[in-house]
Every structure is written in structure tokens, then in C-alpha cells.
């Protein structure tokens, strides 16, 4: 005891022992301005480097073996398909008032092949707002009462049982078909699917059941597929809706189908199921096209930026390019293709690559400028559709049940002669056959290749490990600046009170300082919490607003804005004021508020990057500069230097841009021109976001909007 006492006397002024990691942290924090500038610029630069860093795709799962077997689809099957196309177009000419006729034809064709056929009746579900849908499992949907007979759709489902399978797995082939007004393309897609289907009834190698879903697309392709999937995966045990449906006389006509005595063929009234789905292909043929060669477009983005396994895209790409000679296409942002600055950037990277190659011949870096521009356009559209969080086709419904699915859209070079039609049927059919044969080989579900990637061309991708670097560099300054502000705010209030480590210097004032010093941020945290709570309320408001009948988008938007402002005022008076007045006089309070704001933005962006990377990337590009630059305008005006003047300009510009509606109108104006902009557009856009349960909506409401409000309140802080 005595020894320790002596020791403590000797160490009156103990050297601050600091661990190396803490020292590194202190170094970074003290140079936070430089670090943040370097990190942000390199983050943006890394984003533009992504097309250069993209890798070639490869087939990761060995079991797939695409193209190892020669296609078995012969001209006989093509003729079968052609027959169906002809019948359908004829029936369309004959009776187009109801689609029952064509459904019957399709079912009859399926039955003749010996497949199990059933009809699935569904009612289009109203899109509803589920704020927490993202975090929960898919549910069986609300059972709505009193359906009318007029609004129902009929999916025709044919199932081939695999001769070698145990019936536990299945592959799904989907062809959207609108019986009421079908174009020639839809009939052709049915023809392709039918020719493949007729082949698959004969082959011996099939190990997985094949489900052919002819989705009734009169209420939209997605709704039909989603309704069928919901019924397939989460069966409802309520008789009310089925009873209602069977009271309608039209549907009962459907069941009067002659069943031929083909072995195995079976028509059933009930819902038929096969095993778990290994993969799903949605096949579409475009009606008009101005392409010079047969191309096939791949759409893969599902809700919230989820992508199917890369192997599925690889297989399609490999078979289409190397076996069937089709050109494969992924969506591009057309407006970027002609931009000159992108071209010059590409040329700059190209010359950089040449220099690098001269220095080190082994270096495989750099791509031609034209390829760079194309890659950037593809990457931009890939990011855009992922960020929107709205699926780009009916394949999106499958992803909700963890089934990998893509949409293939064949756009043939257009001519009407029969040879050409047979050619498309043959090549399309062989492509589908090859993909199904590959997936048929799978022993497990797709897991080998990437789920998190961005495409820069059909055969090039950027994996999560690469694009995360760009994002991480962009948001890395946030915690550092938060820490440096926090340290500053704390030390500035304590500097007058002397060093606390020396016992003789301790005064009453120091004792006073202790109690509040390190927990002073709690007050700012409360403010930030209240603003985020307000953000949550604002995001919930549309749920109530859209219950108001007969409301135009513009009035809804105005109501929304007014209610939001009102709720902010109420929250401010109820929760914030009693305690805010106590500590209002604190030194550098805005710094603490900014520090906590930045921390919350960091958490929000980090969280969003896991949920939907693209949204987080766009959000970071907007929010990070705004958060880092925010400083009370009064201080800057008082300083009056050139630097502070620049900062005022930046702050004002960012303060306008980062407001979500403003950002939306700016983007819309850039894409479509400013003439058509309307206040109601934002409301419609928001409505579409929450109808698809997009997490982007939650991000805007609960991260971006509160952050903007906090930054503006910092700008107008009175200090």
C-alpha cells in the first residue's frame, strides 16, 4: 500500500502512455481535413475506375457444363411450335373478347404432350405499403373479400415430371401472355417455349421437373408471376377466395377440356406443385425491333438491387454467344454513350495503361476508350436500376423466394417470312434447352458464384470486393471528422480548466467539469434522435395520405409537405424545448451536433450499403460532401476569407441539391428535360417506390431527409 502511494507521488506528471493504434487514430483525427479530401476524391476516382477493373466472367460451378451436349431440338419440335403460334394467332382473330379460347388451346397442347396441366386463377393484388416488408419473410398476402368476377387472371401451368428425378426440384419457364391483346411476339415466345417443352417430354436425361407457366399478363407480367409464386410457396388455407372464384361462370368453361388418353397427361382443378425451384427463366420476344442482328437482352435486377447468381447469366451468355450466335445485350444508359468527357476520361485511362505497360510488361491494366465508355454506360444503368430497387421484369418475383431468375428478351431482326420464324424458333429454343440442361446438371442450388456484383458488359463484372473499396473510401472520412469535431468540442471547453492529471491543480471548477464533460454529446444525440424520429413519421405519412379518396398527386404531395412541417414543429415543441434551453449556451454546440449527425449518417450509409449498395453509393455522393462541409453561415460570414466564402457557396448549393425532391427534379430534368417537370411527379415516384417495397424509400425518409434537416439547422445555427 505504501509502495503504491510513493509511486503515485513520483508519477505526479505521468507521461501519457498511448497505445500505437490509438496513436494512429489520433494522427488521422488531427489531420482529418487532409484525410477527408484525399479519401473523398479517391473514392470518386475509384468509382470511375470500376469499368477498368472489371473482370471477365467465368463459370464457377463445374457441374453446369454449358454446351457440352449437342442440342437435341430438331425441326420437328420447331414445326410443333409453329403450329401453336398459328393456332393462337388464328384464335385471336376469331374471338378476342375473352381470353378463354387461347387458354384452352394452350392447355390442350400441353395435355397432348402428356404434361400435368392446371389453371391458376388469381386476382391482381393492390400494391400496398409495407414499411417493414424488407425485414420480414414473404407472407401469403392479405386475403381480400368480395372479388368481382370481372377482374381475374388465369395462369396456365404445365408440369413435366422428370423420369430420373425424385420430384424434389424443378426448373421454371415463364412466358408472359396476354390473351386479350397479344402481339405476335408473345405468340412467338409461346412457340419457343412449346417447342422446348415438347422436346423435354421426350428426353431421358431430365432430373428436375419442368414447370411451364403461361402468365396472364393483362394485369402486368409481374403481378401474374407474383400471384402464382405466392400460391406456390405460401399456400393459403382459406376457402373464401376460391369459392368466390368458382362462382364465376366464365371460369367453369375452362374445365371442359377433352383429355386425350396420352400416358401421364392429367388435368386437375387444384393447384399443382413440383419441387423447390432451382432456377427460373422468363422468355419474351419483342414485337418491333430495329436491330440489325438477332440480339438477346438480359434483365436481372430484382427488388432492392438483388441480383441472381452470376453463374446463371454466365451460362446464358456463353450459350447465346458461342453456341447460337446471338448478340447479348444488357441495359445501358444511352445518354452516356455520346458524352465527350467520358470519352476523354477513357482515353486518359488508356494512355495511363500504356505507360504502365511500358514500365511493367506483365501489367494487364486498361481497356480501349470505346469499351470504357460502353462499360461505364452499362455500369451506370446497372447502378441506377439497383438503386431504384424496382425489379426490371417478372423475374423479380422469384428473387423474393431465393430463386435465381432472369428475363431473356429476344429481339429478332424483323422480317415476316417463314424461314426466319423457324430460325428464331430453332435458335431460341436451343438456347433455352441448353440453359435448362445446364441447370438440370446442378446438384445444389446456385451458390458458387457471386450474388453481389455489377455488370459492365454481359461478359464482364465488378465484384463486391472491388466496388466496396470505392464506397469505403468515400465514407471513410465520416468517422474521422466526427471524432475530430468531438475532440475539438470537448477540449475547447476544458482548455481553461487546467490539466486534470496534476493533483494540486484540481479545483472545484474541475470537479464541476467532470460531471458533464464526456457525456455532453447526449444533448446533441437527443436532437439527432428527434429528427430521425421525425423522418420515420414522414415516411409513414403517405400510408395515411393515400387513404384519402380522389386525391391528385399534386394535392397529395402538398398535404404531405404540410403534415411533415407540422409534425416537425410539434415534435420540436414537445420533446426538444424543455432541455434545449438548459444547454443552449454551450460552447461549440453545433460542432457536437455535427459530430453526432455525421456518426448517424455513417451508420445509415453503412447499413444501406449492405441492403442495397447502389442506393448507398448515390446517397454517399450527395450526403458526404454536405455533411463534411456544413458549418454555421454566421461563422463563415464573420471570417470573411476566400476559403470561407467558397464554403458558403458550396454549402448553399449542396443544401439545395441534397433535399430529396430537389435532387429528384434535378435528375429528372437532366434525363427528360425541365419542361415537363411537375410537382406531382415526385409523389408518383415515391408511390412507385413504396409499392415495390423499395428500401430506397426508407433510406430517403430516414437517412437522407433527417441528415438534410440537421445540416440545414447547422447552417443556420446562431453561435
Amino acid at each position, binding site marked *: *500500500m505504501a509502495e503504491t*502511494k510513493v509511486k*503515485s507521488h513520483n508519477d505526479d506528471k505521468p507521461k501519457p502512455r498511448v497505445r500505437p493504434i490509438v496513436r494512429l487514430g489520433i494522427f488521422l483525427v488531427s489531420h482529418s481535413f487532409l484525410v477527408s479530401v484525399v479519401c473523398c476524391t479517391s473514392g470518386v476516382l475509384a468509382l470511375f475506375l470500376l469499368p477498368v477493373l472489371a473482370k471477365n466472367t467465368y463459370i464457377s460451378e463445374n457441374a453446369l457444363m454449358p454446351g457440352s451436349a449437342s442440342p437435341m431440338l430438331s425441326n420437328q419440335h420447331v414445326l410443333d411450335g409453329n403450329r401453336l403460334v398459328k393456332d393462337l394467332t388464328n384464335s385471336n382473330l376469331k374471338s378476342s373478347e375473352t381470353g378463354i379460347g387461347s387458354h384452352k388451346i394452350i392447355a390442350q397442347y400441353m395435355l397432348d404432350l402428356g404434361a400435368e396441366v392446371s389453371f391458376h386463377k388469381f386476382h391482381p393484388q393492390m400494391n400496398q405499403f409495407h414499411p*417493414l416488408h*424488407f*425485414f*420480414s*419473410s414473404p407472407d401469403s398476402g392479405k386475403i381480400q373479400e368480395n372479388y368481382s368476377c370481372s377482374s381475374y387472371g388465369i395462369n396456365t401451368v404445365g408440369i413435366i415430371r422428370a423420369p430420373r428425378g425424385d420430384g424434389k426440384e424443378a426448373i421454371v419457364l415463364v412466358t408472359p401472355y396476354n390473351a386479350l391483346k397479344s402481339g405476335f411476339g408473345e405468340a412467338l415466345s409461346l412457340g419457343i417455349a412449346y417447342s422446348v417443352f415438347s422436346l423435354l417430354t421426350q428426353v431421358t436425361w431430365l432430373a428436375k421437373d419442368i414447370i411451364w407457366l403461361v402468365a396472364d399478363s393483362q394485369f402486368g407480367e409481374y403481378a401474374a408471376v407474383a400471384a402464382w409464386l405466392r400460391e406456390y410457396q405460401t399456400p393459403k388455407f382459406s376457402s373464401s377466395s376460391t369459392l368466390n372464384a368458382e362462382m364465376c361462370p366464365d371460369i367453369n368453361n375452362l374445365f371442359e377440356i377433352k383429355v386425350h388418353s396420352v400416358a401421364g397427361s392429367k388435368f386437375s382443378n387444384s393447384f399443382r406443385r413440383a419441387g423447390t425451384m432451382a432456377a427460373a427463366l422468363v422468355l419474351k420476344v419483342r414485337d418491333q425491333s430495329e436491330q440489325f442482328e438477332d440480339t438477346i437482352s438480359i434483365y436481372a435486377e430484382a427488388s432492392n438491387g*438483388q*441480383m441472381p447468381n452470376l453463374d446463371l447469366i454466365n451460362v446464358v451468355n456463353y450459350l447465346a454467344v458461342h453456341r447460337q450466335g446471338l448478340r447479348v445485350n444488357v441495359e445501358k444508359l444511352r445518354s452516356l454513350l455520346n458524352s465527350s468527357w467520358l470519352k476523354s476520361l477513357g482515353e486518359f485511362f488508356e494512355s495511363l495503361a500504356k505507360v504502365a505497360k511500358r514500365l511493367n510488361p506483365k501489367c494487364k491494366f486498361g481497356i480501349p476508350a470505346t469499351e470504357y465508355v460502353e462499360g461505364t454506360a452499362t455500369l451506370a444503368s446497372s447502378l441506377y436500376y439497383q438503386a431504384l430497387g424496382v425489379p426490371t421484369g417478372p423475374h423479380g418475383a422469384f*428473387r423474393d423466394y*431465393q430463386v435465381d431468375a432472369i428475363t431473356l428478351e429476344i429481339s429478332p431482326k424483323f422480317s415476316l417470312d417463314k424461314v426466319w420464324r423457324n430460325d428464331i424458333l430453332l435458335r431460341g429454343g436451343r438456347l433455352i434447352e441448353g440453359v435448362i440442361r445446364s441447370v438440370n446438371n446442378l446438384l445444389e442450388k446456385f451458390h458458387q458464384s457471386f*450474388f*453481389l456484383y455489377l455488370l459492365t458488359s454481359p461478359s464482364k463484372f465488378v465484384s463486391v470486393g472491388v466496388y466496396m473499396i470505392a464506397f469505403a473510401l468515400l465514407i471513410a472520412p465520416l468517422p474521422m471528422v*466526427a*471524432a475530430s469535431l*468531438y475532440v475539438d468540442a470537448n477540449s475547447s471547453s476544458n482548455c481553461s480548466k487546467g490539466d486534470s492529471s496534476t*493533483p*494540486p491543480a*484540481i479545483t*472545484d471548477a474541475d*470537479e*464541476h467539469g*467532470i*460531471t*458533464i*464533460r*464526456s*457525456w455532453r*454529446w447526449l444533448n446533441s*444525440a437527443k436532437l439527432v434522435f428527434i429528427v430521425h424520429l421525425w423522418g420515420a413519421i414522414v415516411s409513414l405519412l403517405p400510408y395515411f395520405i393515400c387513404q384519402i379518396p380522389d386525391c391528385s398527386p399534386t394535392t397529395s404531395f402538398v398535404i404531405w409537405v404540410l403534415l411533415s412541417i407540422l409534425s416537425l414543429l410539434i415534435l420540436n415543441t414537445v420533446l426538444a424545448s424543455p432541455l434545449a434551453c438548459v444547454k443552449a449556451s454551450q460552447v461549440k454546440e453545433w460542432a457536437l451536433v455535427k*459530430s*453526432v449527425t455525421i*456518426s*448517424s449518417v*455513417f*451508420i445509415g450509409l*453503412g*447499413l444501406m450499403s*449492405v*441492403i442495397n449498395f447502389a442506393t448507398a453509393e448515390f446517397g454517399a455522393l450527395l450526403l458526404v460532401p454536405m455533411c463534411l462541409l456544413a458549418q454555421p453561415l454566421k461563422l463563415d460570414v464573420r471570417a470573411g476569407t476566400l476559403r470561407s466564402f467558397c464554403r458558403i457557396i458550396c454549402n448553399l448549393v449542396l443544401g439545395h441539391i441534397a433535399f430529396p425532391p430537389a435532387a429528384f427534379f434535378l435528375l429528372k430534368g437532366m434525363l427528360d428535360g425541365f419542361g415537363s417537370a411537375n410537382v406531382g411527379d415526385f409523389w408518383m415516384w415515391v408511390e412507385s417506390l413504396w409499392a415495390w417495397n423499395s428500401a430506397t424509400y426508407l433510406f430517403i425518409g430516414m437517412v437522407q431527409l433527417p441528415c438534410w434537416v440537421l445540416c440545414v439547422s447547422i447552417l443556420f445555427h446562431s453561435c
Partner: protein
Amino acid sequence: MEKLKKKFGSFSFWNWVIASIIFRLILIYFPKNLNLPSRPEVSTPLTSFRRLAEGYWLKQSSMSPYAGQPNHLLYSLVSVIGDVVSAMLIRATGQNLQLAYFRTLDSLDLVKQIEGSEVHSSGDVAALIYLCNPFTIVACVGLSTSPIENMAVILCLYGACSRLIPLAAFGWVIATHLSLYPAILIIPVHHFFQPPRKLFLQRHQQKGVLNQSKLPPGFSWRPIIHFAFWALVWSVYVLVLCGISLKQFGGLWEMFKSTYGFILTVEDLSPNIGVLWYFFAEVFEFFRNFFLIVFHVNILFIILPLAIRLHHRPCYLAFVYVAVCSMLKSYPSVGDSALYSGLLGWFVNELSDMQFSLFLFCGYVGVSLLSPVMHNLWIWRGTGNANFYFATATVYACLQIVLVVEGVSAMLNHDRKLRSLIAGKPQDAKS
């Protein structure tokens, strides 16, 4: 003025209590939207209400309640009331502690130094932290049984703090029976019954006068024997009750095997926010026993040094033990962190110097948001894998480590400061 302020303070305290109760009831009213009982963060195999229900059902249909999923809990569930009772107990204990703190300062003649500063009523603060903590709310609404376990622990500490030895023994026995880990709380409870000596000694050594008569009595066996007696009585009581209710299902041995054995051997490897499930899913079967011993001895290793270093602050020692247990236990849930963050409120005055408080706060917020997202990515969307979820579990464990380390060092600094104040005073008097 003082009175008015106090009145206002207590008024807002009750307001907050009522608000938190109403909030819970509202959340309980919307159970389906949140689906909390199925979240791995809330319900572990030990605290899941579903398993409790399953066990009860098995027993009703005259099978062993342990026959299905191993199930530890056979008691009814009143989590909201449990939470409120715990909060009240925490408040009472906090007020006791504050009184004791002032008494200590008084005996050290340090009251003057504190007078000017802002002293929070630590009991109220702790109770409010416990009640309004999202973790507590989630554990309560999520039909987890951890509110009851927490209540037993708090009951034990309350009894020890107010020297109600039978109550302390009862709390200890029940808490141990429910989740085994609180067994190590016997050390802080034991410390409670020993009067503090260190600061007195220091004070008097400083003065150079060691007045034996003023010294409080030293180590005494009486309360310990008293406690041991009551602990024995209660545990016999509990075991007899268990024995009666489990008579036809293999008796007590079966219960021990499938409760304590289940906790110690980490049989259920379903993911939770701890780190053990991942490790034992990976480890080879023949190393399993070795690592089981290593992981459990970890807790035991920490006990002794902490007991020596913090023996003058038994309540804080209890907090540290609870935190360490929730870090290293086999099936942790957010209810455990709710418990220790509530206990942390007792020391709001002492820990006001704690470093990294903002960092820790943001870390907890971040992890508690990230963890469900990672789980969703792994289980529902299938784009992630177990490593994603485990990453958040490791971050959570690291945060707890930082909290414990910083908390202990802040407390020691505070004691050092008190000591230096004692040392500094004579000089002040001279000058």
C-alpha cells in the same frame, strides 16, 4: 426552489415510466408486423417463449418437458411487470448506493468538493435507462424470458445492497437456477457484507493517525454464514419443487443434464449474437471438449483479478461480472446487455469521465441495426452467408470488451482522483 426541482424531476421520472409501459403495450398490440419472437437476437434457446410453450405442452401431454428441444424454463411470463419491478428495484438500489457514496465522501471530508457539481440521481437514471432501453423493450415485447432472469439478478443485488440477506440469497438462487451464470455474483454479494476499509485506511494513514477505534470492524464471518444458510434453504426449496414437478420424467438429474448441461456444452448451434455458435459449428468434434473447457474457464479466469481489484466497489464488480458473462455466455441475447446497461446507470456520477462514450453509443446503435439486416441477407435473401452475421456478432463482442475495459479504467481513475483529493487536501489547508 430545490424542492420544486426535485418535484419536477420525480414527475418527469414517472412520466417516462408510464410512457415506456404504454410503448410496450402498443408494441405488444402489433406482434405480427415485427415478428420479434423469432429474431435470433431476442430469443435464444434459453429465453425463447416458443420453447417454453413447447415444454409446457410436452409436460401436459405427460412427456418429459426436456424431450423436445432442450428447454430450461418452466415458469410463467409477465415480462412487462417484470421490467417495471426490476426498474423499481434498480431505482431503490441506486438511491441506496448514492446514499452510501455520500456517506463515504462525508467520512472522507470530501463533501465540499462535490457540492458545487451537478450530481444526478443515479437511481432514477439507472431505472430510466433500464426501462427505456430499446434492448429491454425488444426483449420484453419479443416474449423472451430474459426480463424474468434479469429481475432475479436485480433482486439479488438489491437484497445485498440493502442487507436483506434472505432476499439476496433468494435472488441469487433463482438467478442461478434460471441461467447458471449469475452464480459468480456470489463474490460481489459477499463483498457487500464486508465493510469498506481501504479508503478509511488511506485517509487515516494520510493524517498519520491510525485510530483503531474509529476503524470499522474487519472481516466478519457472520453475514457469510447467514447468507450460506439462506442460500441453502432456498436452493433446497427450489430443488424440491422441481423434483416434485419432474418426478415422473427422470427427476432432478434429468433437469440438471438438460439445463446446466445444455448451457455448458453449447449443444444448440443456431445463430445468436454471441460468438460461440460459430466457433463450435466449425470446430472438429474431438477438440470440442477442450475448447468447451477453454471458453468456460475464460469467465473463471476473469473473476479473481477483478474481485481483487474492485473489492471496494462490490456493486461495480457485479456490473462488470454481468457484462463479462453476457459477453462470454453460450446463448447471449439482447436482454443481457439490457441488464448491464441498466446497471451502468448506477455509476453515472463516477463514470462521467469515461472515454469513447460516443463511440460506444454509435457502435451499439450500428450493431443493433446491422445485425437484423445481416441475418436477413443470410437467411431470407440468400445473398449473404453465416460470416456476414458472425461479423456483427464479433463487433458486438468487441464493443462489450471496450465498454468493460473503459468502464473499469474510468472507475479506477475516479478512485485515484478521490485519493489524490484526500492527498491534496492537507496541502490546501496549509496554503
